[in-house]
């Protein structure tokens, strides 16, 4: 299946990005998927970046979009999983578009109770708890893996 993994990054200052996009893309390729990645340049005015991302429609790219770091949750795709990790949303949903970005997602997952709690403070929808990526890859631990959520949505 063709999948798109997206996150944000701050050019020059944080080229590694806001989420685990690269390791996730590699893990998905290892599972036989064809994967491309989007990296949204952030670091300028937040509202302007949010609007630019909201205008970016990638609906016809791949069967699913995995938004693994802000502001990728604002991208438009009919089958989007928003993955909240660490302190991604420690400032809450402070852009008006954040709600829309979450509301339209097919699934919202968090890889820790803390990440889940931060989003629960401002967004009322269902946030599934999944294992962190390393544990998902090895199948360790009791939490379900992000791959099982993906397989459920692509089935």
């Amino acid at each position, binding site marked *: 299946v063709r999948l798109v993994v997206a996150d944000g990054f*701050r050019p020059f*200052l944080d080229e590694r990005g806001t989420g685990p996009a690269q390791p996730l893309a590699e893990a998905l390729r290892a599972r036989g998927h064809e994967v491309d990645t989007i990296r949204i*340049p952030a670091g300028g005015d937040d509202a302007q970046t949010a609007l630019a991302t909201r205008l*970016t429609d990638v*609906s016809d790219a791949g069967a699913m979009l995995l938004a693994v770091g802000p502001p990728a949750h604002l991208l438009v795709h009919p089958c989007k999983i928003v993955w909240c990790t660490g302190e991604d949303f420690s400032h809450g949903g402070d852009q008006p578009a954040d709600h829309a970005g979450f509301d339209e997602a097919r699934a919202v997952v968090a890889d820790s109770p803390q990440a889940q709690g931060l989003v629960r403070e401002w967004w009322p929808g269902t946030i599934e708890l999944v294992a962190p990526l390393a544990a998902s890859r090895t199948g360790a631990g009791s939490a379900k893996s992000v791959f099982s959520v993906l397989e459920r949505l692509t089935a």
Partner: protein
Amino acid sequence: VRVAVVNTQVLFVRGGAEQLADGLVGALQGAGHEVSSIRLPFRWHPDDRILDHMLAAQLTTIPDADLVIALKFPAYHVSHARKVLWILHQHRQAYDLWGTPWQGIADDGHGRSVRRAIHDTDERLLQETTHGPHVISENVASRMRASHDVSPSVLYPPLMDVGYFCAEAEDYVFYPSRINVLKRQTLVVEAMRHVRSGVRLILAGTADTPEIEAEMESLLDDPVLQDRVRWLNRWVSHADKLDLLARSLGTVFTPVDEDYGYVTLESFTSDKPVITCVDSGGPLEFVTPGVTGLIADPEPESIAAAIDALAGDREAAVRMGQAGGEQLRERDISWSHVLDTLLST
């Protein structure tokens, strides 16, 4: 210097534009600059999305960059105080492809207003720019001059790879490229019906769409063509491509109005002549008939005659290939020249 290289991203597609951006990033890094590669996704259907993506690019800022080098529509609308344009092409559907089967944008009131918005936004950008615009070929420059009051300067992109060589010519001509309607490989396959010299055609590249793949497969069902055409319908490694180039009689490269065309440079770097067409665009800036290659009409018989002409005078084919190689060396198509030009503006 912190340099951001900004390009357009079409997801799951890799072609010449991506190669060029990667080459530029590598050359800048090699020269000691700190580089960030930025790709802005682009979708052009329905027509309104073009406007959305244009606005998204305008809203994108890269505050930590000292310099932005912007390559392609709509990403070249990114905002920065110090932006150099090195344009691969504009949105051709709104310019030279308008009124052709490849127009893409609807020819109705709304489509025309989208087209006008693209023209106006490009025009503003080009009038405001103080650095450049540089473009990748005279062909792209000439299209730009037809729609805007600008004087773009041509800065030819070098090849990204090394290791090209020349070996004794065997009995085949080579066409390495993604298979699609605009590259017209099916026209060259049709031409092979008319070839009398016994020379074969080797195509290397996968099809861009299932439709063109099916068309090619159906053509190659013909037993006559099966004997004369070999299609390597897979990703061909760089080493294999160099080897196929080196042992060929010459290259056939017959796109419709190509922006630039790395295939011409690859062929000449391997000291092999190029057969192209009168309407192929970029390759015509390098191919001089009888000197570095042959120029055919976009008709099977004409292309077949050019292939037979190469086969009929192999000494001339060798001479033309070497002249092509010599021409490239004289033109100084190098990354050092590209960086000197882009960074001095």
